[in-house]
Every structure is written in C-alpha cells, then in structure tokens.
C-alpha cells in the first residue's frame, strides 16, 4: 500500500463520501418534490468513479451516463453548480437546460451525462481521437452500464478504438441491473469484459466496491493506454443499491437482497474498515473529511436553493453559436 500517501487516501475517501452524501440529499429533495424530472442515484457504486477519477486531470475526458452525478463529482466539478443544475437553476452548469440526466462540466473534461444509454461510447472515442491528433498525453474514459454493453454503439466504439489504437479506457459498471432487468437475462456473457477479446483489447475485472482495487486496476489501464498500446477495458463488478430511478417501486427484487449487499459490501464502509485496521488513517482524519463534505454539501444546497430559475426568455439561448 505504499503508493497510498495521505493525499491519495484523502482524495479517495473524500470523493466517495461526497458522492454518497450528495446522492442521499438528492434523494430526499426529490422525494419531497423539490427536484424536477427524474434522477438516477449512484449510491453503492461510488468506488468506481472515485477510483478512476483519482488518476485523471482536467485535461482528461470522461463521458458519462444517465446515472452521472457520481462521475461528475468525482471528476471535480464544482458542487454548487452540479446541485443547482439538478434543481433546474440558472446558476447550474447547463443554466437549467440539462438537469440530472444532462449534467456536464466541460471545464474539467466532463463531457456530459447522457439520456441515451450507450450514447457515450463513441463520444469518448472521438475525444480520444482528438487527444491523439493533438499529440497530447491524456486519456478519455467512458463509463457505461452492463445494460449499455448490449447496444450496437458498444461494438462500433470498441472496434474503432482498437484499430486506431486510441487512448481510451472503457469502464463498465456492471451493477447487475438494467432498470428492471437482471443483466444475466439479457447479456450473453457473465463477465462483460470477455467481449474485449473480440477487439483484441486488453481487459481486467475489478471489485467495483473496493476503491483500492478500482484505483489499482485503472492505474494499470492508464499506464497501458498512455504507453500507446491502445484502449483498455475495465469491468468493475458492483451492485445497484437504489431503485433504477428515485421512486422506482422495485417490484422485481426483494428489499432483503439489496440490504444484504449494502450491509456486506458497502464501498465506504469497506474503505473505512481497511484504513483503520491497517492504520493508514485515523477516525479523526475520516471525520474531518466527513465534516468538510457536509459543509460543502450544505453550501451547495444553499447555493442551489437560493439561485434563480432561468427566465423564460432564456429558452432561445445557446442553440446556435
């Protein structure tokens, strides 16, 4: 564990905890009817975005999904503007035009959540192509679900990235569910990373609820990709703790099933246990981070609640340049 200096440990915990608390707050605001549209929560999957984004800079790109809050926060987007956007305020990243499903922060290389499942694959490949053409030392990452891996865009993107040896990492968040459908009933492989071989692509499976394993695996991917070997496929095994969207009656599975995973395999609990047992961090240090997070979230909520809605006249802004 030597490469885990305090900064890195702090970062990992900070990102995960921030996502968790952000999502918990979003959930209750949504249930209170204060957030418009619909939202998909990332609770229980925080280790993936956090473990991946810990190694990225603002010059690296990520393409995200409908379940994009975690990716956005992990990539370092300003929390105030994320929160404001989800509330539909004009101070949000998209000036209220996007909302939860279209959250984006181009200033940190976050190329957008996507309401189209599987819509991000080719965007990330294109960003990687730009990186290569610009001869930059960056990478592009696409997060996607098990369900998205059955879209044709998966295939076209992986093939193109491979033949053009583009600096892109495909990060599959296999949370076992695609809305109401267990992935095994619609996906013809147990490990989605098996498909990487069909594109002569290097691949790895990580424990998506262990931020250290995600971090290490992604580092390996990054080294591989940055050495000019072409794309890498990382499958992170996880589980969707919350309903598909907030409000999902979840008739397709039992509460017990979910609770069991959450109790036994909560990425934040696992991190805390590990760092405390191995003496890498103290409870005080953890608490400090938690307090920092609470304050940031409180601030973000205030910011969002006190922000104005866009004026109806803004309807016509930002269509064409």
């Amino acid at each position, binding site marked *: 564990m030597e490469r885990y200096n305090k900064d890195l440990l702090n970062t990992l915990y900070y990102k995960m905890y921030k996502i968790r608390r952000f999502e918990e707050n979003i959930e209750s605001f949504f249930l209170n009817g204060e957030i*418009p*549209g*619909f939202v998909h929560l990332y609770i229980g999957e925080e280790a993936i975005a956090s473990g991946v984004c810990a190694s990225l800079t603002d010059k690296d790109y990520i393409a995200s999904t409908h379940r994009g809050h975690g990716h956005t926060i992990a990539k370092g987007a300003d929390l105030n503007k994320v929160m404001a956007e989800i509330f*539909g*305020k*004009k101070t949000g990243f*998209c000036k*209220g*035009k*996007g*909302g939860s*499903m*279209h959250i984006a922060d181009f200033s940190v290389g976050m190329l957008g959540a*996507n*309401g*189209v*499942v*599987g819509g991000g694959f080719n965007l990330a490949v294109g960003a990687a192509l730009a990186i290569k053409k610009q001869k930059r030392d960056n990478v592009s990452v696409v997060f996607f679900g098990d*369900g*998205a891996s*059955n*879209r*044709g865009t998966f295939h076209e993107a992986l093939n193109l990235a491979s033949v053009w040896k583009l600096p892109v990492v495909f990060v599959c968040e296999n949370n076992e569910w*695609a*809305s*109401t*459908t267990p992935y095994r*009933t*619609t*996906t013809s492989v147990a490990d989605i990373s098996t498909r990487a071989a069909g594109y002569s692509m290097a691949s790895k499976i990580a424990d998506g609820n262990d931020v250290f394993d995600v971090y290490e695996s992604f580092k390996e991917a990054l080294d591989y990709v940055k050495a000019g070997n072409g794309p890498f496929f990382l499958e992170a095994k996880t589980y969707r703790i919350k309903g598909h969207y907030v409000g999902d009656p979840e*008739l*397709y599975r039992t509460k017990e099933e979910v609770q069991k995973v959450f109790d036994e395999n909560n990425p934040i609990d696992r991190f805390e246990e590990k760092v405390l047992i191995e003496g890498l961090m103290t409870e005080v240090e953890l608490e400090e981070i938690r307090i920092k997070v609470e304050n940031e979230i409180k601030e973000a909520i205030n910011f969002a609640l006190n922000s104005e*809605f*866009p*004026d*109806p*006249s*803004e*309807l*016509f802004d930002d*269509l064409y340049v």
Partner: protein
Amino acid sequence: MRQITFSQATLEAMAEEMRRDENIFVMGEDIARQGGVFGQFKGLSDEFGDRIMDTPISETAIIGAAVGAAMAGMRPVADMHFADFMGVAMDELFNQMAKIRYMFGGQTTVPMIVRAPDGLSSCAAAQHSQSIEAWFMNIPGIKVVAPSNPADAKGLLKSALRDDNPVIYFENKILYREKGEVSEEEFLVPIGKANIVREGTDITIISYSIGMKKAYEVADKLEKQGIHAEIIDLRTLVPYDKEAILKSVKKTHRLAIIHEAVKQGGAGSEIAAFVAENAIEYLDAPIMRFGAPFVPVPFSPPLEKAYRLDSDKIVEEILEKF
C-alpha cells in the same frame, strides 16, 4: 358508458387481439417484469407468458427482429420505450420495415407495430420528451397513427393489430393517465379516417394526440368570443384524411393546426401545404400552425413551460386574424 384510462384502453386492445391472434407477441425493454415504463403493458405477461418479452437494450435488434419475425409469419409489437430512441433503429424503420414490401415487389407483408411513447412529460428534458412523427410522414411504406383519447387508443390499436402493413403507434405519455368513455362492446377505429369531434362554422382546428387538449381549450375560448370552431382529430397521420380536411376548410374558410411537436418541418407543415395547394381559394385568413419552438426541450420548469403550447397565446394569434 364506463370510463377507463388511455393506458387501460391499450391494454384491452392488446389482450383482446392477442387472444384472437396467436401470432401477436411483444418485444421491448422492461415490459414483462415491469409492465412498461408507463405501465402500459401491466399484467400482460401474467396472461400471455413468454409472448411478452423483455429485451436487451438493443433497439436495432428490437425493430430488426420484429421485421424478420413479421416476414416469417408472426405479428410482432415492438416497444420503443421512448419515441426519442427511434433514432437508434432508424435504419431498420425506414430502410427495412418501410421498404421491404415494395422493394421486393409485394412478395411479403411486414405486419408489425412499433409502439412509441412520445411527448413532453414533466421535465424529462431534451432526450426524453420528443415528438418526431413528422419524419415518418416523409417515409413511404409505413402507416402512422396518434390517438388522442382512450376510445381511439383502443380502436386504433386493434386496427393496427389487424393491419398487414407496418404501423407506428404514437402514444402520448401524458395521455396514458387520462380517462375517457370506452365501449365495452368490441369496436375498431379505422386507420386513415379523421374524426370531426366538434362541428363549427368559423374556423377549422386540426390536431391529434396530446395536441387535441389544446384544440379543445382553444375552441372553448374562441366560443366565448362567439367564434364557432370545428375540431378535427386527425387520428391517423399516414395516410391522413384529405377529404375530411378539405371539406371542413371549405366550410369554415379558416384553418389552424396544432401539435406539440416542433413547428418547423412538423406534421402541420404537410397539412398546411396540402390545404394551400388544394383549397387556398376558400381561405379567408392565413393558415396558422402552432407547435413547439425551434429548440430542444429544456429541463428547467420555467423553460419547459415556455416551451409548451399556450392556448391563450394561440387564441390571441387566431383572433388577430379575424
């Protein structure tokens, strides 16, 4: 007469026709376990078992396989989840489904239905709120229907399920929960026939699907000004009922077309152009189209509200031309 929701009406149509015709089956995402994103397939899998099939997130396979199964003697119903995702399978829809019968000289039929929930709901934003029926008016080989109420929803779906041509069935997300009278007797609503839902003498208002709500609002408000509007519910967009349109316009001498979809290049353009081509001499005023502005659907409530049709504004604009 009893009242049921639009959603229930589609369920009845499905169940009745599936009992009648064992070749009908349904494919789509989250339709068996969940009963559809909007509950529009709820309970069907209890009765029909594996004739209701949950698919992977693979829209090209859903449409493409439906086309293949239709050619091989089945009568598939393909659910698109949201009409917004039809773009994913656009090649299958327009280069395969629509053309197969003609291109192969009538050797086969492609009896299938594409069910496409469309329209604004509540802040679903740019990729989950669209109405794209106009594209399909430009593609020969498909029939297109867009019911506005539970009775039509049932009657048109039943007709579609007996039609040997591919039919796109646009079902509006907000309408699902609306109730209306639906006869307990069996009935069909013919594809291609418009419905004059209110007779009037002063202006013809044409609409379909959710647009009909605005049509009624507008007509009611005009009525208060002493203007008697005739309302035509188009019901079917391809083929649309040219006769009914001309007849009405020749009587009222005025025409307004209302739809929720983007105005530019929308279905209203075709209707307006058709009338300007065939009955311009009967018109006493400009043909007016009312539809969404030329921007994607925004998320935030005040923006979404500004995006929506506003019957007061429509009335105002109509009155200006009187």
